[in-house]
């Protein structure tokens, strides 16, 4: 019997980076994810209650080898927690370990294999499911001709959202052009308001674009999920996250997660500030706003 080439066979040099990227969208213990394969790379999608969706984009440039042989775009469902736990066993502290990912296996599994040593190898087979289709579409459209967006230090964003935990279950986000600022506001048992002023806090707020005032409310637990699992490497490297408000108040939060350990393996390359764009995993969260009683928002 001639063996057919699998839909995907790819190899990655640094498992820990992949663990970091996937962990960023793991906001609870048991979560189902859908994985979509294409010639451009791998996308992993997680969703909750029709209000929150997260996507991890792993472009093919991240992989040292990427052989794609499928027609169309194969999709499969997998338990995110198990996937991360399995990948984690490949990761050895203080060194970067290579793995091979293959789909499908003989019984439609995802096959993971370590590549570092012939005499000590790790193998995993993860059962996949036929994915459910998502109930609603997260098509993100800009709110107007000019995007409403700001870029903020990931650590600061996470801290601000953590601080807003006590007032209540929904958080109001206000963007206003005059003075250019972002306001995060929680109301409930008490009030708490965090103002980020563009001109005053240039170290925190790296970019800001807004031509009219908008205000939307979001469920706290969904907002929290967008930042609570940002990996330590992002915080340590002082990276930024981009927040955009789209049509209807749809919130988009984007993080960039470094996959390769450039600073460890190539200290000289890193010191001149050279970063290959292919070494970054893109993470996007989409949060639907709560329906507001007053429709004072203009688009």
């Amino acid at each position, binding site marked *: 019997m001639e063996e057919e080439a699998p839909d995907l066979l790819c190899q990655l040099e640094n498992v820990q980076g992949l663990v970091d990227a996937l962990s960023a969208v793991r906001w609870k213990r048991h979560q189902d994810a859908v994985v979509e394969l294409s010639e451009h790379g791998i996308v992993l999608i997680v969703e909750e209650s029709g209000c929150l969706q997260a996507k991890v984009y792993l472009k093919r440039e991240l992989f040292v080898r990427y052989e794609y042989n499928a027609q169309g775009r194969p999709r499969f469902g997998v*338990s995110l927690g*198990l996937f991360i*736990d*399995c990948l*984690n*066993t490949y*990761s*050895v*502290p203080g060194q970067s370990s290579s793995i091979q990912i293959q789909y499908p296996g003989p019984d439609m599994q995802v096959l993971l294999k370590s590549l570092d040593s*012939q*005499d*000590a*190898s*790790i*193998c*995993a*087979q*993860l*059962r996949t499911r036929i994915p459910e289709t998502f109930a609603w579409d997260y098509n993100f459209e800009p709110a107007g001709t000019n995007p409403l967006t700001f870029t903020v230090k990931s650590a600061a964003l996470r801290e601000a959202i953590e601080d807003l935990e006590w007032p209540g279950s929904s958080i109001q986000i206000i963007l206003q052009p005059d003075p250019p600022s972002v306001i995060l506001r929680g109301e409930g048992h008490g009030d708490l308001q965090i103002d980020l002023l563009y001109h005053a806090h240039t170290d925190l707020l790296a970019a800001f674009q807004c031509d009219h005032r908008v205000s939307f409310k979001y469920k706290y637990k969904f907002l929290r999920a967008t930042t609570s699992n940002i990996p330590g490497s992002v915080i340590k490297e002082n990276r930024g996250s981009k927040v955009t408000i789209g049509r209807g108040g749809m919130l988009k939060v984007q993080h960039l997660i470094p996959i390769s350990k450039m600073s460890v393996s190539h200290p000289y390359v890193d010191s001149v500030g050279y970063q290959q764009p292919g070494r970054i995993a893109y993470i996007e969260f989409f949060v639907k706003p709560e329906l507001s009683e007053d429709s004072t928002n203009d688009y």
Partner: protein
Amino acid sequence: MKFKAFLTENGMHLLEKRFLPALDKMGKICHLYLTKDHAMFLHNLLNGDGVQSIAQFRKEALFDDYRISSQNDDRIAFVIDVSLLQRAVRSSVSICSEFGDGPTANRLLIKLVKKLPANSTQPIPFLSFETKGYKSAVIQDVPISKPLSRAQVLELQNALDMTQDLPQTLVQVPDLNQLQNFVDRMRHVGDALNVTISKYGDLHIQISTTLVTLGAEFRKLLVIGEQANATAEDQNLTAQTRSSRAVLRGDGQSVQVSVKHFAKSLHCHLTKPDCAFYGIAPQGACLTVIFQFFIPGSRQTDKSISLHCRIPVLDTGSS
């Protein structure tokens, strides 16, 4: 019933820095079994289903001026709390090292005593640690169980004899840290671990649940005991197939153990062994781990110290 001995400097180091921290991880209490020639720390030998650990020292490895006498062939055994013992040894060692030097160096005296505790009329047994400093003496009493009766000691000795059967094939694990790191992460995935050991020098450990199979294979390990040459046709198979083929041919054995137990046995690397061997006892009775210690500065096995664990089998597996 009398027991009195001085712990040597080497003995202090062995117990404080290496063995007691490891034994503490094996279980809160253990039997301390003293004979004319040996001192043994025994975990789970009489009771139950946990990991059995047997640490045995020839008296010279720990003590000098070792005196023991009992009506039961000079054997004494009792139950002791490992963490209390560890605390007593640790603080006694710090006192000794603080004041002791020269010919009058402080020595740590260990003896079995009976004392009347406060608010009690019944004297209870203690293992007493006595350290004499320059101007002071520090005595620490670690409470112990009533010494075991003649019948109980016999039972313990029988259980100990039962643990001495050697697996026919033992493979050496080169890097315990790596294995521990792996098993610690594996614990999240499942509870039961299949362990296959072959005469070719392959060790394969694998967790299987309905959703996931996760395994690690270590090959071309040093084999002690029965060995065989791997067949060339097995080279390009998956680890799982290779293991089951070895078992089918009678060149391998497989057992299932608890991941928690397996991880616990790996804590023995705190004793800083020079090598570790895994093997499956005859009839798949248990998974045995044997740790070896070299005489410092040599590659010769130190016969005065021995440590091994027996991990209970959940299921006889495919053997």
